[in-house]
């Protein structure tokens, strides 16, 4: 293969010299020559658009908001569909999160939000450690770190005891390892560590571990099917909780991405949906929900 290329190059070189004044064989020769001279073998191509937006359903993807871009996210989760027609299949109830994400640099993004679920405030920082690329520098995966801090804002149920502010806090550390396998398929793994300063019961662990897996499958250029699942490691999970499974669609129109999905979790911050989901798919504890993302370019995009 390599020799073929060298021979071809030599041929082009010599024919070019020998027959410089003769009619050239074919225009494809010039194009072939261009291709051989191409410098992009020395260039690195970074993979873009592994996912349509920075969230898969509830959790993060490897994507960041571009530098100088503000991403306004409004997310809703309705009630469970098994409530029936009386509650209009859950639409009578809604939990929502309002959030702002901002791309600080090519690799870093920060954001904060407020959910009505347990009046939770959350803030996160996300940093791209590795970027999937081909060409000169080959890297099969993109790896991002996400660190989230969440503050439970509800009034304490038991005011007779001493309640500390720190008890409201929980922390999540995630590594997101994602890869765009083809134009249509992107997959990611999300090992996750959650620390709650306050466990509800004395024998519950403060440190929780889970591994997430998810992916997107492009159906058309502007429509994709997404799936997201977190497996909580037995012994490091809260008893009575279930593993969150979410299935949905991303619909992209210009600067908006609409995400419509079904999920068994009501919470929208990591601590709440990874370690605090109670709904069971098999019992119909499934909620309809949507995220709307709208991006605004604030800083210079270059």
């Amino acid at each position, binding site marked *: 293969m390599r020799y073929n290329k060298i021979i071809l190059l030599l041929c082009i070189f010599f024919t070019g010299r020998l027959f410089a004044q003769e009619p050239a064989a074919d225009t494809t020769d010039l194009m072939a020559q*261009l291709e051989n001279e191409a410098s*992009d073998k020395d260039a690195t191509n970074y993979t873009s658009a592994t996912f349509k937006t920075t969230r898969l359903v509830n959790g993060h993807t490897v994507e960041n908001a571009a530098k100088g*871009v503000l991403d306004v996210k409004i997310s809703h989760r309705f009630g469970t569909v098994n409530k029936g027609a009386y509650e209009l299949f859950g639409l009578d109830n809604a939990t929502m999160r309002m959030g702002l994400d901002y791309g600080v640099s090519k690799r870093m993004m920060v954001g904060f939000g407020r959910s009505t679920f347990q009046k939770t405030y959350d803030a996160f920082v996300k940093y791209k450690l590795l970027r999937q690329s081909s060409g000169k520098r080959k890297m099969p995966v993109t790896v991002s770190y996400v660190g989230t801090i969440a503050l439970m804002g509800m009034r304490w149920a038991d005011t007779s005891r001493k309640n500390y502010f720190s008890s409201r806090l929980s922390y999540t550390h995630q590594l997101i390892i994602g890869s765009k396998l083809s134009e249509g398929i992107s997959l990611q793994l999300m090992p996750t560590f959650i620390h709650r300063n306050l466990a509800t019961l004395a024998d519950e662990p403060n440190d929780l571990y889970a591994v997430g897996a998810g992916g997107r499958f492009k159906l058309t250029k502007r429509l994709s099917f997404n799936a997201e699942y977190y497996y909580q490691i037995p012994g490091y999970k809260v008893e009575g909780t279930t593993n969150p499974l979410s299935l949905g669609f991303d619909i992209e129109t210009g600067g908006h991405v609409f995400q419509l999905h079904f999920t068994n979790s009501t919470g929208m911050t990591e601590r709440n949906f990874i370690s605090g989901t109670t709904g069971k798919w098999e019992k119909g504890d499934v909620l309809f929900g949507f995220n709307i993302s709208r991006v605004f*370019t604030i800083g210079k995009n270059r």
Partner: protein
Amino acid sequence: MNKCFRILTFAGCFFVLVAAAPVTVYKVNKGSIAFNSDAPMELIKASSNELAGLFDASTKKFAFRVKVSSFEGFNTALQKEHFNENYMESNSFPYASFEGKVIEDIDYSKPGVYNVRAKGNFTVHGVSQERIIKVEITAKPQTVSVRSSFTVLLADHNITIPKVVHEKLASEIKVDIKAELATQ
């Protein structure tokens, strides 16, 4: 000393011979390509400095190409992503190219400005169209510079505009090309 002189003479002769043989293939040293989409609601501009090309003056044949993902500019980062992902599909069709032959017979060794027509296959988004494009060539000793402006219909290259962005994306894209070519 004598030997040294002989080698020098030989080398000198060699260079004279090489220089005497007319080199007619010009290569792009500096090439840029810019496009703009002027729609009622939005003006989008982008350009690339990675235009590569060869022109063989003796056969009048040429080949030019540009890497689609090398275009920079746009109004937002997302627009660039959509350009590559949804419209140009630059993963599947990484290059836009134009190859063919100049119609007019011109002696480029005579300095001057020549208006010529370049006829060939214009390929964007994997779809080729036969085009005749007017080009202004300025010939100088050892170099030529090329300038051209033309339009590209998205429909010609199987690029569809979704209804929601009809007001934001022109169906006809203006393209400007500038390149400096020199013999190698």
